């Protein structure tokens, strides 16, 4: 089936689909002009910031949805200088300002957000901010984090945090209270993307040294046999990783998928190098033949590949 397009006018930094995407088609996209929401599988989008009284577009570099979004309608958007918070699905917003006007590069929310109310924001020069009580309490805290240039952030199902920086990967096992450097080879840095899955697996995507994987929570790292000369813009882990071990790796001009039973495959490729690069992806229903794959590009296009056609990567 041909992919459908909805052209937007800015870079797509991240796509976030709800767990029940298959039923209601709701997803969000963080982009240069704001945070957008679609309720029809990516066909049409509306800017959730259009009612904000601002003189310039609100560049939204990342977002995070509450794991129980259906009940609490809570979502957060990372913007320059802080995080915007909404408790009504994006209708109204409140700013949580950070000091030093830092740029938020990544947001992760606790898997137990309904109990803890915790989320974490990585910034380009200010390290990490810990937000508690659903964002009401916010403090910068970088204990043990030698490198404050945080490019990527991820959290595992057991709430172990990983931060990808210009110089390597750091891990925190106490909800961001303290960080320790992992044994990620610093020569492979910077770490542009991270994704953590169950069973202590962590994937780290670099700028020019390929994809690394750890099976022991960051203690040891192995470089995987995938292309190494391109930056890895994003890594997405399947929501059903325990069953399919599905992983999507987003390169500038292609997206590779991995699945347990048939290895690596290329499911999207731009043949024309002049096309705007691919920046992000989302796997709302895992890595299955009929499962959709949402792809964002640098010119605001969101492609909904409704049915993954796999080309095995040799």
């Amino acid at each position, binding site marked *: 089936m041909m992919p459908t397009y909805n052209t937007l006018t800015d870079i797509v930094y991240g796509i976030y689909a709800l767990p029940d995407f298959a039923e209601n088609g709701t997803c969000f996209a963080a982009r240069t002009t704001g945070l957008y929401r679609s309720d029809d599988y990516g066909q049409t989008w509306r800017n959730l910031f259009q009612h904000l009284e601002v003189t310039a577009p609100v560049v939204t570099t990342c977002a995070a949805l509450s794991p129980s979004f259906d009940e609490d309608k809570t979502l957060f958007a990372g913007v320059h200088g802080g995080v915007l918070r909404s408790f009504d699905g994006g209708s109204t917003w409140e700013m949580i300002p950070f000091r030093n006007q830092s740029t938020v590069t990544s947001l992760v929310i606790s898997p137990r957000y309904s109990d803890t109310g915790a989320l974490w924001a990585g910034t380009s020069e*200010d390290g990490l901010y810990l937000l508690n009580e659903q964002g009401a309490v916010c403090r*910068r805290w*970088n*204990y*043990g*984090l030698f490198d404050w240039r945080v490019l990527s952030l991820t959290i595992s199902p057991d709430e172990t945090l990983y931060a990808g920086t210009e110089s390597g990967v750091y891990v925190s096992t*106490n909800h961001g209270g*303290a960080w320790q450097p992992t044994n990620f080879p610093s020569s492979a840095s910077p770490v542009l993307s991270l994704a953590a899955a169950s069973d202590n697996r962590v994937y780290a995507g670099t700028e020019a040294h390929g994809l690394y994987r750890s099976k022991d929570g960051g203690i040891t790292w192995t470089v995987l046999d995938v292309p190494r000369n391109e930056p890895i813009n994003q890594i997405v882990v399947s929501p059903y990783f325990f069953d399919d071990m599905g992983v999507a790796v987003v390169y500038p001009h292609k997206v590779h998928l991995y699945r347990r039973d048939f290895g690596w495959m290329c499911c999207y490729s731009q043949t024309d190098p002049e096309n705007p690069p691919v920046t992000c992806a989302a796997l709302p229903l895992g890595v299955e033949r009929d499962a959709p794959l949402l792809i964002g590009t640098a010119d605001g296009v969101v492609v909904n590949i409704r049915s993954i056609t796999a080309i095995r990567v040799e």
Partner: protein
Amino acid sequence: MSPLRERVVLQPTVHEKMLVGINQIVDALRPTLGPVARGVAVDSMMDFKPPEILDDGATIARRIYNLPDRDADVGAMLLRHMIWRIHEHVGDGTATAAVLFQAIYAEGLRYIASGGNAMRLSHFLKEGLREIDAVLAERAAPINCKEQLHSVAEAVCGEPQLAQVLAEAFHVIGEYGRLDVRSGGRETRHELVEGFYWEGGSLSLTLVEGHQNHRVSLDDAAVLISDFEIADMRALAEVVAQVIRARIPSMMIIANSLSDAVIGFLAHVNQQPGIKVIAVKPPHENIHQRAAALCDLATLTGGQVFAQAAGQTLASVKLESLGRAKRVWTDRLLCGMVAGKGDVHAVQQAFLQMRDAIAVEQGTDRQQQLRERMGRFLGGSATLWIGGATVPEIEQRKTLAKRTAETLRVALSGGILPGGGTCFLHCRRMLCDHILNAHDLDERAAYRILALSMQAPAESILRNAGYEPGAILHNIEHDLSQQTMFDARTGTFSMGETGKMYDAAVVLREAVRASVTSAATALTIDVIVHRKGYHKDAPPQNA
């Protein structure tokens, strides 16, 4: 003072009297063991001062330095020396070691009196120690949650609130983080402080007056790291001019002193737009520690140290040799910085080198210095505000908090073991197997003595809490899963992780190691020789 003659003491007086002295020390320490412990009142040397109420085994033993019976005094001082060595090495576990020592020595004497060979017994006791240490090392587990930290802290300090606050602080700062214990108001709480700071504060009140609480905080600062005594205003002006030309909005000058003219110059600079300057003292009074601290600051900020002793002057200061930091601050007493902009790899490398060095360092002072340096690199610290109703109470709780903090560090580095003497009870099965397998009489006796003595700490804890140990110890030992513990505070058994009590593994291993080796050595003492001297009517001022 009356003169004393040389005297040679032989058996059986040696054993009898040494045991008397040892018993006196141990009986003074035994009440302090466990969560339901009692205090020990130590008479003051000054008539007008009240007695000290102590609960720390090492301090109590230290106060006993001269028993009237010289023969008993030998045994007492032997034990006292062992206790203080443990205190200096790991900071805790002295009462545990004392009761273990007494049990081993007393049982050992009985065996020797029945015809056993003291030297062979000593040899086999030390062999048995290796087995016990191996079991404890295998069972030691790393701390993996705040609740375990709380359990270790409460076992040391006996105060749930203080233990909770310490556990929360150490859950963040970890083994190497800096913890400052300060007097607070009524409430005991902890505070996490970003960056690092040192005592000294501003070099001149003129530079901080007018600000709230005399505290000045500046963002994006250049940092001049030196030990200069700056008197030349013109030379400093050139450095400041370089910073202004580079459009850096603020500057921190670290120097030993500033002349009045220089202070006046800086005060004038602060009134102009474009740059704000603070001047602070370098960390530490001690020359060597100061030099290390300045080097650390240079690494953290990417700057260079300018030292008078190296012949450097302000004229050699260039813009590129200044450090940079996201934020610097100072008040009257303290100064600090947040997020130095030094090379990340250099910072990480320096931290790892210090971490490796601390692992091999034996002296606690040197370890403390390395830890303080590592704390600077970690980018944060915790301050513990100790509250209390009166000043003496606060001071006592501060001492307790510092002691507990040291034990927590030891626990974080060496792991934890089941507390309440339970881990020693778990060693008895292995020791009983050795008894059955031993062919040599002395060997069998050694393992029997060790097996008996392993019950001593738990027995003391239970008796202190008012329980008869027999049935309780039986329940604990005969649980094959080794999960059963008895909480002497509540009088309840617990299984699994809930309600489990922990002690620092290093402390327990050191206690058993010191007690067994010291007792084994003490059992081989056959003769005491008293030296010529004087009867010490008045004990020395400083023990």
